[in-house]
């Protein structure tokens, strides 16, 4: 588990061009200080996910909205408990419960 996130290198950029990575822009401060509002990140939809990883997930109640949070726990049934690094500014699994595997978009692998 790493609290850090690498900066994208040329390999990540090539993978973005090849559409093996998807870029998103962060909005909000729930992952501060690691990720600030306006930071761009790359998501790998195929990467395996472990506790401590940062992931992108579909919001369980707001259609079309995607959340960026850290995996605090993975249950034996494969459900993810997600939290923000900055809990005071975060609505996460403490409020909306665990997220199903199907709602995980991918792992945040680096920032641009």
């Amino acid at each position, binding site marked *: 588990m790493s609290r850090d996130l690498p900066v*994208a290198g*040329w390999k990540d*950029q*090539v993978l*973005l*061009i090849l559409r093996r990575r*998807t*870029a*998103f*822009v*962060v*909005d*909000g*401060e*729930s*992952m*501060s200080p690691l*990720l600030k*509002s306006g930071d*761009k*990140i790359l*998501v790998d939809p195929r990467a395996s996910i472990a506790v401590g990883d940062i992931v*992108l997930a579909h*919001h369980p109640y707001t259609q079309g*909205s*995607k*959340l*960026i*949070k850290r995996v605090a726990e993975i249950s034996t049934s494969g459900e993810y408990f997600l939290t*923000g690094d900055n*809990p*005071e*500014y*975060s*609505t996460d699994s*403490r*409020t909306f419960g665990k997220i199903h595997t199907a709602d995980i978009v991918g792992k*945040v692998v680096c920032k*641009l």
Partner: protein
Amino acid sequence: MLNKITEKLTRNIETAEAHCDGPCGVYDPSSARIAAEAALSMTKKILDLKAPDSSDSQAWVAFHNTMARYIAIKEEQAQVAKDELLILWTDYFKPAHLEKYPNLHDTFWKAAKLCSSVKVEVSREHADELMDAVKEIHGIFWATKDRDVAWYTAA
């Protein structure tokens, strides 16, 4: 070259939301306190308002008008207090707070019930109890933020 392509590919991209549902972190029990205090003030005014001694119609019109205004404000402010408490309860407080304050749900539930009582009745006792409940919530709220904020009232 690679950087230029990356920049172009990341110009209009989707948002990854990293925020809370409400106005981020801006919670304060003082808004509930102001409304509860206004409801208490109106309760006192209703109880103190004297009916006219005479049968003068103008005096009775003025009495009913004043009474109606006091009642309307009491009803409105008791509801505002309830809404503000419910926002704190459901949006600010998290399960971690409940572990530290196991009577949290009971405190909010009773406070919300008191708002309803103050709204429906003209009870000085319940209006005072609501202020006590808001004071207790004020103490818990600021303790969760490790801040020593003294309780105060406007009156």
